[in-house]
């Protein structure tokens, strides 16, 4: 419970750093605490009072300092937005922003305000992550509360002149949608995928394509300064609506605005990414409804939404992220671990079989943590479904912006990356582990880290998982599972004490058992088991854009959309960009996934995806290409397309979004099994000649034309016919 308390403190403090009126901070804080964590506050304000003393042991001095610092920065209400943005920048200037703020304030405030939190605690029920203890009866279905009672009716108006929509959500109301938009919170607070957005914050892009679970905007209710009555609040909200709507649509909306309603501004989203993706014919419905939603007619017709690129969902399809009880509990205990008196930053490793909901949980977790801290580190150990980088790369990223969409919508340069080249690690487990170890060396330990692992939890995959837990000295292990039968053994600290990894082995049973056992126990991790209860857990998506190869292609397209200029230029296919050139003998070339005859290497490299890597060695060739004898584990700064090879002049031509200042360090190009999305090769507008590597004459009807196909679960006739035949 005490840890819990601490969590509210830090929420407080972050606000503190961004909020105006240092003098009225006290009250502002109270309100905020109340609205954020209703359950815990009621549960025991008395216990909470004990916490400060416990938590204060060592930190108080530091905290004070930072508090002062933060105050100095928070200047005026106008600047609050700016400051917030600044705070989110990597935590150099504000190490542990979350820890500043007065503990005494809270203890006082709790009792004072706790009486009225319950008045709207009910409305926050949908906000699953903040639930705890008392709401045992809340099954995931609780989120669908609107389903039977009232049809979802949204108070939204579109303004033609300014081309945006203003949406008024009552406390507790939510909007589950498909599509994409830019969301600004004008009044009150809303939550999306665990991230709280409130008045005065920057606009956030939201992407909700049918490849993933739809996003939900949940109104959390306003936290108007106390002392102002409802009427004032209402007037203020109405003023905001007036400001953003012209007279005609305004009238219809004003009557719906109340003091505690959230006003949200939705704008159409037209980024180079969106334009690039939708320029491909196959992807033009990427931000539409999924076929299942179409079939069940889940779309709510609303002109104001469709004008900005959204489609609201209703019925069962509007359940959004299904949060099971174990999920909620795990999330809140991780939050507590961060806030609590844990003597170091939590190292959170998330594991589970394929399609058990790891990446959704990760996003939710990161967003939740970002409510309380400026940045979260993220270590990618899953080669197939990478979060921030193209597939086939392992990376360590610093996350400062919330993740409000699937991975392909937030491809960015990772701080540190290693190119592995394949979408699974089976071929070379040692290189995989070595790559991760080399990335781990860059982890600063100053912010919490979330480690995402691959879905391979059987056989060697499980051994690798054991290795990872040991390498990273994980403090919190989240293990997701689904169905009735467990996918793999429970990774309890006791289990790990005897489990064999791929590279690591359990310590030999020591003779001086007492001492070592005590040591190990203190080092053991906390295991949080989550039982996923969403529909289709454990089965891979079959619908369009849900299959893993499609998602990988989307991630690559998302990555290369960085090449597109931000202005209103036409979408350019990759071959239209001015390439960089480099002599064949100045960069090494290697193939990560198979043996290619050296004199034919350029046939493999031409028009291929390459990892741009930096070797320590100086690369000096003798005219021709420089080939690597084995695949190195080396830093990778990004990906590029080897656009062509000028044999006469001995030059590689490369198209890449990597900035030139970074590109200059690159001296090694690695080829992997992850290939360019097919459409990048088959759709090259403006080319009049025949496209290389593309043919329409290849027939897959001919025997042997297809790839190696592994049939899983091929049943033997003897099993079917009860051994009568054989």
């Amino acid at each position, binding site marked *: 419970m005490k840890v819990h308390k601490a969590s509210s403190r830090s929420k407080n403090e972050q606000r503190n750093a961004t909020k105006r009126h240092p003098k009225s901070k006290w009250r502002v804080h109270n309100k905020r605490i109340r609205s954020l964590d209703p359950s815990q506050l009621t549960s025991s304000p008395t216990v909470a009072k004990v916490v400060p003393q416990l938590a204060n042991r060592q930190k108080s001095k530091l905290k004070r300092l930072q508090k002062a610092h933060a105050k100095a920065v928070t200047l005026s209400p106008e600047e609050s937005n700016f400051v917030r943005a600044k705070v989110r920048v990597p935590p150099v200037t504000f190490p542990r922003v979350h820890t500043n703020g007065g503990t005494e304030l809270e203890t006082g405030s709790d009792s004072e305000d706790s009486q009225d939190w319950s008045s709207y605690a009910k409305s926050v029920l949908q906000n699953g992550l903040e639930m705890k203890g008392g709401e045992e009866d809340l099954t995931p279905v609780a989120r669908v509360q609107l389903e039977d009672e009232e049809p979802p009716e949204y108070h939204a108006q579109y303004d033609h002149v300014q081309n945006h929509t203003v949406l008024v959500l009552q406390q507790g109301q939510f909007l589950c949608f498909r599509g994409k938009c830019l969301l600004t919170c004008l009044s009150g607070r809303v939550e999306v995928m665990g991230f709280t957005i409130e008045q005065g914050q920057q606009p956030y892009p939201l992407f909700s394509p049918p490849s993933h679970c739809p996003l939900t905007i949940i109104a959390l209710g306003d936290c108007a300064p106390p002392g102002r009555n409802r009427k004032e609040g209402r007037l203020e909200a109405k003023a905001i609506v007036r400001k953003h709507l012209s007279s005609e649509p305004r009238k219809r909306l004003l009557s719906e605005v109340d003091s505690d309603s959230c006003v949200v501004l939705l704008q159409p989203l037209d980024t180079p990414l969106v334009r690039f993706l939708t320029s491909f014919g196959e992807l033009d419905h990427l931000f539409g409804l999924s076929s299942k939603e179409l079939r069940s007619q889940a779309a709510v017709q609303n002109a104001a939404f469709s004008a900005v690129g959204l489609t609201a969902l209703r019925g069962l399809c509007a359940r959004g992220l299904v949060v099971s009880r174990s999920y909620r509990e795990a999330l809140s205990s991780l939050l507590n671990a961060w806030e609590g008196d844990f003597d170091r930053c939590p190292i959170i490793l998330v594991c589970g079989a394929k399609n058990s909901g790891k990446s959704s949980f990760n996003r939710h977790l990161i967003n939740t943590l970002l409510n309380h801290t400026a940045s979260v580190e993220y270590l990618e150990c899953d080669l197939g479904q990478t979060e921030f980088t193209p597939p086939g790369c392992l990376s360590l990223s610093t996350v400062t912006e919330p993740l409000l969409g699937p991975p392909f919508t937030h491809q960015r340069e990772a701080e540190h990356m290693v190119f592995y080249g394949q979408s699974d690690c089976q071929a070379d487990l040692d290189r995989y582990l070595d790559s991760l170890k080399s990335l781990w*060396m860059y982890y600063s330990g100053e912010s919490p880290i979330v480690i995402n692992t691959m879905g391979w939890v059987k056989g060697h995959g499980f051994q690798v998982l054991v290795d990872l837990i040991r390498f990273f000295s994980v403090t919190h292990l989240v293990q997701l599972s689904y169905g009735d039968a467990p996918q793999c053994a429970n990774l309890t600290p006791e289990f790990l004490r005897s489990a064999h990894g791929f590279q690591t082995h359990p310590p030999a049973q020591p003779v001086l058992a007492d001492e070592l056992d005590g040591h190990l126990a203190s080092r053991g991790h906390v295991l949080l088991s989550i039982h996923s209860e969403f529909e289709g857990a454990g089965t891979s998506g079959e619908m369009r854009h849900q299959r893993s190869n499609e998602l990988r292609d989307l991630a690559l397209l998302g990555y290369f959309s960085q090449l597109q200029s931000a202005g209103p230029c036409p979408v350019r296919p990759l071959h239209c960009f001015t390439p960089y050139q480099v002599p064949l003998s100045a960069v090494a070339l290697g193939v990560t996934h198979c043996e290619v005859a050296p004199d034919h*290497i350029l046939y493999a490299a031409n028009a291929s995806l390459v990892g741009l890597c930096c070797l320590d060695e100086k690369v000096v*060739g003798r005219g021709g290409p420089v*080939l690597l004898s084995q695949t190195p584990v080396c830093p990778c700064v990004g990906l590029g397309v080897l656009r062509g090879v000028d044999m006469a002049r001995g030059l590689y031509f490369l198209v890449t979004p990597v900035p030139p200042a970074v590109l200059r360090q690159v001296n090694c190009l690695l080829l992997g099994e992850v290939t360019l999305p097919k459409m990048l090769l088959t759709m090259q507008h403006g080319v009049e000649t025949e496209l290389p590597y593309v043919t329409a004459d290849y027939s897959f009807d001919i025997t042997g034309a297809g790839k190696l196909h592994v049939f899983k679960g091929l049943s033997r006739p003897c099993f079917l016919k009860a051994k009568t035949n054989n």
Partner: protein
Amino acid sequence: MKRKPAGKTRHVVAWMNKAEWDHVLDYLYSKDLALRTHALHRISAWKGRFGHTTPVAVESTANLVRCQVLDGTGNMEGDDLVLLYGMALTRFVNLILERQHGRVAKPLRRLASNLNIPEWIVNLRHDMTHRRLPSLKWCRKGCEFVLNWLQQEYWSRQLSTRHIADWNSSSEEEDEEEGGKKQDDDKMEAEEEETVTRQRERERHKRARELLISYEHEQFQVYEELRQHSHERGPQLNTSTDLGWILAQINQFGSEYGDILMDVLVQDGFLIPTAEQLESLDIDPSGQFLDSFYPSLPRSFLRLWLPLLRVLSSAPFINQILDRLFAELSNEPTNHRTFYISAWISEILQCNSKCESKALRRMKMMKERIFVSRVPLQCQELISACLNSPCAATPFLLQQILTDMDKPLPTVTQHNLLRLCRIYTQCNLGDCSPSNTDPSQPVYTVESLQEQLAGAEQSRRVLSPKHGPGPAKAMPTQEIQEQLSAETIHERQAALRGSPWSVCTDKVPWKQYPLGKVPGQAEDPSCLMVETYSTLTVFDQQVELDHISHPHGNTSGAVVSRTGPDGPLWTHGDLSKLKMGLKLF
């Protein structure tokens, strides 16, 4: 119309083009071990591109050929070879039959018979895996058979449209063995026939060139004489008897092989004059005074060809040559060619003009008309041909076609079409407004284009229903290529200075070069072969790892590379040292 017929999906493959495929196929099945090795090496690169999607047949063939190559070197012992062959054959049988399984596993023998793989091959596989290893002799036999099977069933069918058609029309259960052989024979015959026809065609081309060259030669002589005589103001020379004979021959040839004659005519040095020819006709070859928007032939050059064209001018010939010229125009020829081709088109159209324009009257007076009586032209086809081959003169030509149509289009349609055409060809309207231009819309913006597009597209559809990709093609595509400003280039170059990298500053129309193609790249499938290369051995990466880990207080012993699951253990001490090193808080 543009590249591939619609409806066929385009696949990404590992070979650059058909030529590379043929090249590998030839080498795979050649007798020469070096060539076969070459093919295997190329397939290794293919596998690099394909990754896990390598076609099963390609992989099996490579495995089996590898066995034969190793067998051929004579360096291997019999037992080694049996193991090699064994794996290659087993994988072939298993992989090729894998897809034949339904949901339930079936006996391989039955599946094999569906594919015309004889039972003994399957038995060979069973022997390899479950029973006594077969003899090397049987292995070799099996390998040879399977390679032939693969050639017939996969390699020779794939990428050859004729065979695909055969295959698709026939059901899978058909007797493939015989069919395959027959097809092979057919193929041989067809190939032979093809070479013979090609040979003949080449000869005919040669003949046509000879005839036309002798005609030109004769005409130049006449011209020279004429020039000399003009000083003396002597009587005009009549066409010599030699010329008459040549003309008769050409006419004869043209009636038989009109296509070939046309082919040669549109080549440089005939209807398209070379610089030399122009000089000898006293025409400035630099062409700087020529108006590419309103091309017209230099008169003396026209006169050079008039006798021949008069002889040839029949209605079908005129239609044919127009078609041909437009087709040439759509191949995006050089400026010089474009000018002369469009000038010839314009010339012919003018001769056919129905209203008595000034130009026509002048032509009559000068006896410069190629033909006198009007020829019914296929205007619809002409318009679509004209629009398919955009050049600077397209609006001008289009105008001519439109005004001469027997059943003219509605004027609105004509206007729209012309306007669209001008926008596309970027012909400046200010300085060259022909009679029909609408002066109220002198400037075109993207918006006006968009407005016009709907209407124009419609009219286009009315005009030529067959003309599918026209509207898309008519969209301006210039912008699609990235144009870096000098500043950006400078900035990037500055950032890259000191490194081997640089921005490619060659003036290359990259939009015309698809990924994998660069300017000057040969079509030859061996264009990417590496002659010299060097190998770089990277030090163990762990060195770097240690280096980095030092600031964390790690001893270098803590992080050691392991190889294999049986490698040295991470001792507890190592582990805790590692952990200690990482904890900074």
